[in-house]
């Protein structure tokens, strides 16, 4: 299975922060790293956004699979 993107982003951000904290980058490098870091933060926050969750039922109709909203017990 493909590795989780969120986990990748988190690791990448940690690396960037560690490199910036080490402070051995040129100004352009640190600006680029900073912009990349901010981009990762934004993407991760979007992933953690407080969206409405979907709870659905996977139903089989003959050979076809259908996904329907789950209305609660008895649906």
């Amino acid at each position, binding site marked *: 299975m493909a590795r989780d993107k969120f986990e990748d982003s988190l690791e990448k951000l940690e690396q960037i922060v560690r490199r910036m904290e080490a402070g051995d980058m040129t100004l352009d490098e640190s600006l680029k790293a*900073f912009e990349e870091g901010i981009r990762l933060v934004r993407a991760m926050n979007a992933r953690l956004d407080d969206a409405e969750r979907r709870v659905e039922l996977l139903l089989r109709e003959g050979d076809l699979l259908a996904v329907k909203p789950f209305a609660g017990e008895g649906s």
Partner: protein
Amino acid sequence: MMDGFSQKVWTVSELNEAVRDLLEGRFDHLWVEGEVADLRRPSSGHAYFSLKDPGGQIRAVLFRSSAAVLKFRLEDGMRVLCRGRLSVYPVRGEYQLIVSAAEPSGIGALQRAFEELKARLEAEGLFDRSRKKPLPFLPRRIGVVTSPSGSVLRDILHVAGRRFPSADILIAPVRVQGAEAPPEIVRALEDLQAEGLVDVIILARGGGSLEDLAPFNDERVARAVAASAVPVVSAVGHETDYTIADFVADLRAPTPSAAAELVVPVRRDLLAAVESLRGRLLKGMDRSAFRWRERIDRASQRLRDPVRRIAESRLTLDDRLQRLQRLLQESLSNRTYRLAYAAGQLRHADPRERIRRHGLRLETLRKDLVRALEIECRGKRQRVGTNAARLDALNPLGVLRRGYAVARRLPDGSLITDSALLDEGTLVDVRVASGGFRAAVKDTYRS
């Protein structure tokens, strides 16, 4: 032909007594297996029934004191293994089994099948640690294979919703009991893997007897779990119930709620982790910008001659500072958004008074933050101004404008700093604020 003994005439009671002695002496501790029939439970609390097999039956009684410690409820048609002794009820001339303990005899067979399958799959390597797939860090959608009604699904939805309110869940409804259950579970596992619908699957069922859990000890289910490309977390039965599915699954959870906890991370923790990294990133950028400003300052101090390069440095500095300001602005609006969000959360979560207090505090903090950032920006702008002024002061043309002149010896153009080194008639080039002129040395003096 009769001897004296056989000619003895017994009374009925004597005969019953003798038979009782015989039976009780011979069968005072035994195990009998059979099917329960004609079960009666009079108000005395004793249970009367027959034990049958295809060839016959025997009457049996389970007294109230023994019935009380039985771990299951006797039912007609149930196969049971009884421990007891034989006795005779002289009043009726019937013999019967006095049962002291019993257990469903089905368990034995199920247990044997369980152990046999477990050993076989283990030998095949289906339980190996190396086969276990790691769970996704933050699943996009969670598949749940379980009964669509009942507390198991409710618990999972509740716990998942509490930890990560936007985690999507796809339920593959199945029967979790009976002969239909295994093929349905296998189907559901396969369907959920189709087209990458989910990136982790919870296979769950509430607790029950070994018989109830049988579908999760089914070889077909075990193999479907093992073959799943998507990681499977099993949560079958109570904490102490282990099923074959548990051994094959990538992770075994003691309960359905625990499965949801293992699969779904806490959103708040992740937000906090990202926020902390963001803070370190900002601090790192600040430090880096500071270091580079220092270097530019030092470099510009050393610059004497080329005005052009000074102007360039100033442009670079301006550009960097503008970018920094933009980024700080951005982080400010980000923080403001987060504070507003937190304020909203508090409003929803807590009693009104606390919310009001927190709201005020948040507003103050937000203002402080805005003020702090404004001060920071202003400071940076001031630094640009100061640096520009400093650079101006160091501009050699500035010195000339104040009336000083630079004289060079011709033709080599070397700077003249000592008049004793000049001869009468030497040609010199004198540079003033605007333009210059050539002259010949008339005489020299020491001031």
